[in-house]
């Protein structure tokens, strides 16, 4: 049997069910490895003591019918966890201990999973490198001083470094798929309305979705099956019949029509990514898929649209952080001064920048020129996809325009940081499902990902295409454990 922490969720579940491993052994193995991996700065808060107790409890009365029987899982620190500190990577929530549980994490625990702890992320999920976190940047296990992507950077790094078998992140403009691409892991953003947003610290409500981040496509299907559910507590949760994603997982994609959008061939894209994309196309052909050239004419307008819509929603959502009912408070002579000092000291620079953009585009006299304009362009972007999906079953693109970059390389230029999400943002604007799978490496040996985009509620199809491609690509991460201490 291979080392416990390097096993997939599928293997661990099987080993538990066949009584070859106990929940206690597995939980301890992940905790021991985390203790030696502090250099990566992956955990904001650990739940190790309670996790050990819960694993013993599971072992004394195991239920093998559950989908995650006694499996320890760490989650992004954006999910509210009852009784366990939830910070969203921000000083303003540094001492916040929720008295309720997010629906998505509740779904994990209901299927037998055990909380290992809370994973570092960009502050309020605003960032593409995990550098905006109040708790410091995360190291990418792929190489020293490399960003793990963001905003789910602690999550992607935790999966790649074997600190958790699988995890869940959130994705507003690429925050699951871009870090997955940067770390050689799999990340899926479900259709808007598939996973409940209840209990997730809100960033941009019309774009936010939770989703699985895993070592491989099969694990991804297993986890999606658990977290996707209809929820009365989220008014935009959609009531539809969900697949048994893992049961229906199949490599048979013969006859599937896969679209290749010409607009995703952007200026200055490295040759390696162009080559990666070509390889993906040829693998899809080998699997019997039909390749069709398509056009998504408004692609270039997606990022500017996103940087109006997302900050606008964020500025409204983050108005609640006023130092009155919970979170950090800075005292003031009067109420207004208290608000202003609390928010000035409690939020980091990127969050303030986005609140300012959002406040400006929603302010009197500018609403029509910016916000309304963006909502109209969003309609055009959605229509591009509607038109494309009348001809194809799925769309294949690169996940990111580059591999992981060095820590500090892009922090002084917000716009260059925003360009990271050029291939992922349109999918959130259109509410579609998208998955990033590791597909190759660049000249530095850093991972690169391919993205498969599907029709609304067609997660099964993009999982199947990814499953088939994964088999052909046969990606190996070869991470050296350079960060381990004794």
């Amino acid at each position, binding site marked *: 049997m291979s080392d416990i922490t390097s096993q997939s969720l599928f293997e661990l579940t099987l080993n538990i069910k066949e009584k070859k491993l106990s929940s206690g052994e597995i939980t301890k193995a992940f905790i021991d490895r985390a203790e030696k991996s502090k250099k990566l700065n992956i955990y904001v808060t650990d739940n190790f003591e309670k996790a050990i107790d819960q694993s013993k409890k599971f072992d004394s009365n195991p239920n093998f019918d559950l989908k995650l029987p006694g499996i320890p899982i760490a989650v992004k620190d954006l999910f509210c966890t009852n009784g366990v500190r939830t910070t969203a990577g921000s000083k303003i929530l540094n001492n916040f201990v929720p*008295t309720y549980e997010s629906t998505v994490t509740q779904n994990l625990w209901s299927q037998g999973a055990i909380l290992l702890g809370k994973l570092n992320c960009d502050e309020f999920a605003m960032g593409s490198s995990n550098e905006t976190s109040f708790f410091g940047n995360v190291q990418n296990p792929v190489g020293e001083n490399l960003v793990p992507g963001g905003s789910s950077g602690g999550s992607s790094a935790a999966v790649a470094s074997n600190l958790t078998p699988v995890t869940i992140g959130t994705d507003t403009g690429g925050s699951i798929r871009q870090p997955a691409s940067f770390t050689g892991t799999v990340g899926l953003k479900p259709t808007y*309305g598939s996973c409940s947003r209840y209990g997730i610290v809100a960033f941009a409500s019309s774009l936010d979705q939770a989703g699985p981040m895993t070592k491989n496509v099969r694990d991804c299907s297993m986890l999606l099956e658990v977290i996707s559910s209809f929820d009365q507590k989220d*008014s935009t949760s959609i009531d539809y019949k969900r697949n048994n994603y893992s049961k229906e997982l199949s490599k048979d994609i013969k006859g599937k029509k896969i679209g290749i959008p010409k607009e995703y061939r952007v200026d200055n894209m490295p040759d390696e990514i162009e080559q990666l994309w070509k390889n993906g196309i040829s693998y899809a052909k080998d699997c019997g898929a039909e390749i069709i050239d398509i056009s998504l004419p408004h692609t270039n*307008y997606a990022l500017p649209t996103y940087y*109006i819509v997302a900050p606008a929603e964020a500025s409204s959502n983050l108005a609640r952080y006023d130092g009155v009912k919970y979170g950090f408070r800075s*005292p003031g002579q009067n109420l207004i001064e208290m608000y202003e000092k609390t*928010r000035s000291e409690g939020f980091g620079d990127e969050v*303030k920048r986005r609140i300012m*953009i959002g406040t400006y585009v929603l302010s009197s006299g500018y609403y029509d020129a910016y916000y309304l304009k963006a909502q109209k362009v969003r309609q055009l972007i959605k229509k591009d996809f509607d038109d494309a999906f009348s001809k194809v079953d799925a769309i294949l693109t690169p996940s990111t325009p580059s591999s992981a970059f060095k820590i500090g390389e892009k922090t002084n230029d917000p716009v260059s940081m925003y360009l990271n999400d050029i291939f992922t943002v349109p999918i959130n604007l259109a*509410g579609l499902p998208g998955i990033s799978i590791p597909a190759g490496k660049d000249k530095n040996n850093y991972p690169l990902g391919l993205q498969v985009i599907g029709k609304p509620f067609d997660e099964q199809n993009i999982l199947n295409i990814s499953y088939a491609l994964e088999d052909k690509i046969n990606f190996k991460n070869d991470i050296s454990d350079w960060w381990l201490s004794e």
Partner: protein
Amino acid sequence: MSIDLKTVKHISKLARISIDDEKANKLKGDLNNIFEFIEKLNELNTDNVQALTSIAETTLRFRKDEIKSENIREKILKNSPEENKDFFVVPKVVE
């Protein structure tokens, strides 16, 4: 168009975030870069396009108007920055 220092200070007032002159100047630069990038949308004619207001295309659900009596006062006050029995404490607002 460009955003001047006065506008930056006005937005910061609206957003209830106090900023000093140094920060305001830095923000002015950042915001102008970002808005230059956003202005690209003006290339598009959207006169006859309907704004997208909901991606899910569903109407909001109704639920029964039921009273759920849970005693959650303690839970709600648990994270309050300044405690005083059953209330949230803020600086004096009435002179």
